[in-house]
């Protein structure tokens, strides 16, 4: 938390609060220190990107926020409630869409309702399907759809239960560059329309700058927060800003910071 956290969105209160989060995995080959004393506030309605090299604990941090595994030390809370197990106000969007291959799209989207034992909100689902352009694909199985369509379906699945927080774990990492731009635009629009609080893990610096209000840069082994950047580019941001000199300058700035932190480790993963 050494970087200053000056507000870009004035007056926002904290939605998700992480304090002193430390996570040590006990594995067969010994302890892996994934997170070390991470403290962070995600503000209400904020789009926060978490970025860093592989193994910096960003996915671990996100999974902890989702209540999927407990911290070794520290505390994470949503609206003051400590998160000890998955919270109904929090929905997670995974890498590679993570649809269940044996269910068609409709059944995949109804999964959260099924698990909660409630009736699917068909009206809301249809509105969302229409919003992401998936009307008429309900009876298709995931393997019949492109990667982008799968990920759109998984976004619908998460939004269908109307959570207030979306946690996204490198959701577009496996998509080609064009589809990725498209998805980034879509998620920006959805965020602007719904006002959800989003924490978005990525290892693409341009993607982070394009999407985020604030970028948290993490460093590896153990994972901790290296610096935090505010991104004050006005919205909506068109895909074309990614080629503007000012945007590229921001990318270079963050990249230089990450590289200098990483020292000799430099060559390993920045490419990914």
């Amino acid at each position: 938390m050494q970087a200053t956290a000056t507000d870009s969105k004035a007056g926002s209160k904290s939605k998700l609060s992480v304090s002193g989060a430390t996570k040590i995995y006990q594995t067969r080959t010994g302890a892996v220190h994934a997170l070390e004393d991470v403290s962070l506030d995600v503000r209400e309605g904020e789009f926060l990107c978490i970025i860093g090299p592989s193994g910096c604990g960003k996915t671990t941090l996100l999974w902890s926020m989702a209540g999927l595994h407990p911290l070794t030390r520290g505390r994470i809370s949503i609206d003051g409630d400590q998160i000890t197990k998955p919270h109904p106000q929090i929905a997670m969007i995974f890498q590679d869409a993570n649809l269940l291959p044996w269910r068609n799209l409709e059944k995949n989207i109804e999964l959260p309702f099924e698990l909660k034992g409630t009736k699917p909100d068909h009206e809301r689902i249809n509105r969302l399907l229409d919003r992401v352009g998936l009307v008429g694909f309900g009876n298709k199985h995931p393997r019949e759809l492109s990667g982008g369509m799968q990920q759109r379906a998984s976004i619908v699945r998460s939004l269908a239960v109307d959570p207030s927080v979306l946690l996204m774990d490198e959701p577009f990492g496996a998509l080609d560059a064009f589809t990725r731009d498209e998805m980034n635009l879509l998620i920006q629009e959805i965020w602007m329309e719904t006002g959800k609080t989003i924490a978005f893990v990525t290892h693409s610096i341009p993607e982070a700058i394009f999407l985020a209000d604030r970028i948290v840069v993490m460093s590896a082994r153990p994972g901790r927060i290296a610096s935090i950047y505010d991104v004050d580019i006005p919205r909506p941001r068109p895909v074309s800003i990614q080629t503007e000199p000012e945007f590229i300058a921001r990318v270079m700035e963050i990249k230089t910071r990450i590289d200098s932190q990483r020292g000799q480790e430099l060559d390993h993963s920045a490419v990914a």
Partner: protein
Amino acid sequence: MNKALEDTIPTFNKKDAGDENVSLSGGLAALGAAGGARTRLEIAVIILVAVIIIGGAELILTVMEVPQYILPTPSQIVTALFTEWPFIWPHLLVTLFELFVGFAIGASIGFVLAAVITQFPFVEKVVTPYILLLVTTPMLALVPLLILRFGFGSEPRIIAVALASGPMVMINSATGFRRTDLAKIALARSFGANTIQIFTKIRIPMAMPMIIVGLMVGSIFGLLTTVGAEMVGGAEGLGNRLTYYSSLIRMPQFFAIILLLAAIGISIYVFFFWFGKKWASWEA
């Protein structure tokens, strides 16, 4: 299961998802390879080959005047099947009954055992060698012993069938249950799923292709064991008829029984193939 999630570093490496996928690998794809969709031409050729083989056999056996007790002609076999049917079908029912009951018992136990054992890696490691022993030992060898204990009725055969098919179902189902991947469990958990829901909505569907392979292989093993056990002792069943007809050198009837056994085997295959198409087509 929660424990496993806590102590596993979230990775999505496809390799992690299915360590031991390789054993009877490809799951249903392996079944599909032999029975995939065919074009009309392919079907026509398959039938043509059958006609040539059967017709050729008929012709050669007749022309060469091969005695019936060495090899009956196809027409003699089919005729025998029809004329002897009133005497054969009670035995057919006995065989089917033993196979069905034995398989149902063995498969249920195998399935439940697989589901439970894969939840406890330590138990699984301890139990697996013994299950392998059961899979690889021909259960037929136990039949004489079982007959001593249970007599010449259906019981020893049913037990032998259960012992032959159960471990097969179990070992394949276990492979299926092992490969349930972390991301899908995490997905369900993130929506608040409890352990039972994770089991019914994630683990079972995920394991289904391998479970079906296990059921198919197990039931074929069961058929083998049923017939074998009937040949060892007792006075009923198709296996018993094989020994009976061959001892009387009634070869057309003998081959008619073989024809029936082949039909049972094929029916089992077709049933599970259809079953797989319906419940595990997502993997093929």
